[in-house]
């Protein structure tokens, strides 16, 4: 009798997905003492107390059961009000699905639309999940390389060139992790002009929408005339309210799409965690001030870290959103991986190699500024020593 090997039974697509390169780096880092990391992509703030307290109160009151599949009605209503108040978008609670983090909303959106053989356009560098999720649905990811000279923005021209008869979805990952780039209303209008008349659906990942640092606030593509009908907005509470561990996000979409997403969510998840939903009601209804305070703090650090890298001769495009900067390290002659590995072993400083976010991230590194100003300064001093000895 031959031995049963369960790994041979795994989904071929899953097995063929490339392992994450960055894992190895952080495995090394985790064995070292005193590492100064600029690697982490979550807020260093903890959830504001009044929001945590709302979660605690819900537990005290015994609210430990499931909610409606699509989430608490009050929460969905607050989410719609919030979208109107902060970004001028007109949605009602019928357009909102509460999910387990923005990540679930991305996964659901892919599965709701993709048929095997479809193409999904993914601008890169960007968050790592889009391509693998599309492939698991049987789609082919079509990557658009965002260029430093374009400020890592998606251009209408590049989009047009990537569209084929098989294009089903466009992922719009702005404000962008890892580059910090954002798209202005004008730039979105140019993209909308390309999409008009096509059948392409947009998944607009706006998880960093509250963290932009320009005069013009974040604009959602859904606010461009004609685009709301084809857009699923994905967002959540993690970044705006420092609520990563609560695992709560949402999708906003036209009613029939929202209903389809809810059907999927119902089969896969049932509903998002109840205590988190109660905390989120407090966040949306009382948390605008918290957002402003954190945004202001990130902005201080952003200026500090961008100037820091530029002063060291590592050219750093002005990041206008999120909490990352993406300095160009090609002047050192090292690859992104080499740079990060050498920096870690020489100075115990952890950055993320840019190619972890797509091939076009090669030659760059991602530094998070979700760290205190002191911590950032210490890390920059280490990078300086490292560069001097190269």
């Amino acid at each position, binding site marked *: 009798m031959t031995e049963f090997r369960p790994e041979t039974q795994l989904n071929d697509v899953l097995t063929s997905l490339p392992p994450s390169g960055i*894992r190895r780096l*952080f495995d090394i880092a985790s064995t070292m003492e005193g590492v100064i990391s600029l*690697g982490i992509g979550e807020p260093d703030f903890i959830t504001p107390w009044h929001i945590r307290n709302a979660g605690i109160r819900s537990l005290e009151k015994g609210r430990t059961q499931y909610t409606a599949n699509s989430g608490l009605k009050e929460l969905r209503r607050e989410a719609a009000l919030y979208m109107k108040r902060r970004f001028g978008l007109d949605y009602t609670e019928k357009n909102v699905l509460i999910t387990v983090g923005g990540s679930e909303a991305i996964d659901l959106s892919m599965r709701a639309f993709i048929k095997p053989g479809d193409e999904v356009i993914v601008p890169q560098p960007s968050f*790592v999940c889009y391509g693998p999720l599309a492939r698991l649905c049987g789609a082919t990811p079509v990557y658009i390389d965002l260029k430093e000279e374009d400020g890592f923005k998606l251009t209408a021209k590049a989009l047009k060139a990537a569209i084929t008869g098989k294009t089903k979805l466009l992922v719009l990952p702005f404000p962008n992790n890892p580059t910090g780039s954002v798209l202005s209303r004008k730039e979105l209008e140019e993209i909308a002009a390309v999409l008009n008349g096509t059948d392409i659906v947009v998944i607009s990942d706006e998880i960093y929408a509250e963290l932009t640092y320009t005069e013009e606030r974040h604009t959602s593509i859904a606010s461009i005339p004609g685009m709301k009908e084809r857009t699923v907005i994905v967002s959540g509470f993690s970044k705006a309210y420092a609520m990563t561990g609560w695992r709560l996000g949402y999708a906003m979409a036209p009613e029939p799409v929202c209903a389809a997403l809810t059907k999927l969510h119902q089969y896969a998840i049932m509903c998002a965690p109840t205590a988190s939903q109660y905390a989120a009601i407090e966040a949306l209804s009382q948390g605008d001030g918290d957002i402003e305070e954190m945004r202001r703090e990130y902005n*201080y650090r952003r200026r*500090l870290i961008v100037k820091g890298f530029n002063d060291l001769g590592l050219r750093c495009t002005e990041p206008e959103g999120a909490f990352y900067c993406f300095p160009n390290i090609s002047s050192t002659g090292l690859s992104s991986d080499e740079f990060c590995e050498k920096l870690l072993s020489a100075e115990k400083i952890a950055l*993320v190699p840019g190619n972890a976010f797509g091939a076009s991230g090669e030659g760059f590194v991602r530094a998070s500024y979700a760290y205190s*100003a002191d911590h950032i300064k210490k890390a920059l001093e280490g990078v300086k020593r490292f560069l001097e000895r190269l």
Partner: protein
Amino acid sequence: MDNEILELLDKDSELSAKDIAVMLGITEEEVSQKIERFKAEGIIVGKKVMINWRKTSKELVTALIELKVTPQFGRGFDQIAERFYQYDQVKSVYLMSGTYDLALQIEGKNLNEVALFVAEKLAPMEAVVSTATHFVLKKYKEDGIMFENKQTDDRQVMLF
């Protein structure tokens, strides 16, 4: 902009003019000039380090004193307050609304020293009607700084 500089210094008095300039996107000279002006105008009146003396060998007792006083004719409470805050042992003096008039924070080596100070120096003053002394047993938070339960960075390295 002025308030932004002050708020940054309020949180971290060790920030250099250079850092503040970068953080706010203005020049270092501008920041230095403003800080000089804040000092000259008595807006910045001092700076200090927050110390949790409980963790040291130094003996220190803190008390909050509620004082009811009779205001001096024509001079209100200011003159009385002044006679209190000249003492080194008196760390803070506030004029209060409500059931008493002045709140004092007093420090001493031990309970006895503080009690004696209140009995011998404060209570006998002509304007003082009554005092109530409350000893501080534990300090959890002061001026926005947590004294116990320090937050650590427990963030796990997620993939991204």
